[in-house]
């Protein structure tokens, strides 16, 4: 009798925990890569950030990226200083950018089945304290327990209050910058 109740409680407990895990469906990762790429006839400029934190809810499709702006690394130190300065991204006053989106076709993505899925993402991007809507597509790749999300889109710097009218930056930095987002999550 005791043994039966023990077995029963183990079954109940395991059912409860799996249900709970499914109900939350929240994946968290720090394995991320965000790239800014600007191209002009004068030069190409690239900055890479590997320190963002991201959460993806596989149930609701809601995803968030929190981006520490001072973690963007440039090949040239001077460009990095310009990027951080109050004339550009003002990273001392706005240390983090945020991408808050939702995969609107989440029902079409089967996280339990290996495959490459197209994700429609709509949400808000906040840089330098200014928020603009984004509507982009991305790719969700499921392989075993690993879920990879990638997306590439363009942002107009002027939308985020980043403007330069004279000098070298105005000729060497594109008005529209390509943003690539990459993140890898582990499913339980």
């Amino acid at each position: 009798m005791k043994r039966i109740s023990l077995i029963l409680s183990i079954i109940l407990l395991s059912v409860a925990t799996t249900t709970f895990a499914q109900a939350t469906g929240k994946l968290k990762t720090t394995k991320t890569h965000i790239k800014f790429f600007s191209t002009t006839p004068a030069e190409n400029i690239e900055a890479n950030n590997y320190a963002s934190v991201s959460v993806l809810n596989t149930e609701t499709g809601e995803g968030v990226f929190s981006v520490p702006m001072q973690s963007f690394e440039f090949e040239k130190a001077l460009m990095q200083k310009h990027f951080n300065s109050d004339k550009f991204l003002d990273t001392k006053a706005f240390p983090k950018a945020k991408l808050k989106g939702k995969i609107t076709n989440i029902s079409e993505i089967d996280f339990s089945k290996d495959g490459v899925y197209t994700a429609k993402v709509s949400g808000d991007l906040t840089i330098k304290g200014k928020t603009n809507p984004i509507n982009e597509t991305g790719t969700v790749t499921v392989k075993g327990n690993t879920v990879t999300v990638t997306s590439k889109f363009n942002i107009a710097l002027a939308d985020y209050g980043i403007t330069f009218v004279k000098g070298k930056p105005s000729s060497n930095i594109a008005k529209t910058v390509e943003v690539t987002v990459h993140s890898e999550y582990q499913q339980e």
Partner: protein
Amino acid sequence: MKRKKLISAGIIVVVVAGIIITGAIGFYMFNMPHRNVQSAKTDYQLTATALVAEYLENAGAANEKYLASDGDSKIMEVTGTVNKISENYAGKKVIILKGENDKAGVSCTFNGEVNVPSLGTTVTAKGEINAGASYDTDMELYQDVVLNNCTLVN
């Protein structure tokens, strides 16, 4: 006549020197190397617990104290317990130092090779601070302090 020649020669020398100096400064500025975090002087020595607590108490004041407007923010030596070891997308080691009862830790991204310490040991990492700890209401979780270009200090 002689004096006139001397003056014009002088002017030419000054102008040429000016052009060379300006060019050299411009060239140096453009190719200025990134600062060497390891050889730079440490600005603050503290525990992971103290740094996280300072940020959760008043993030604005902590940012004012630690972040620089050109991105070359304060150089920290943070001591704490190794809570998690991972690798980032660029293949660099990331070690999280976190106090047992703390809500957030300090994430240190290492440059190059590092003798990875064991989980649970106490180590000191030197690096530049990029961002502080905070509670993110969208993620519903605490975010760690971010240190970059780290090395272990013996």
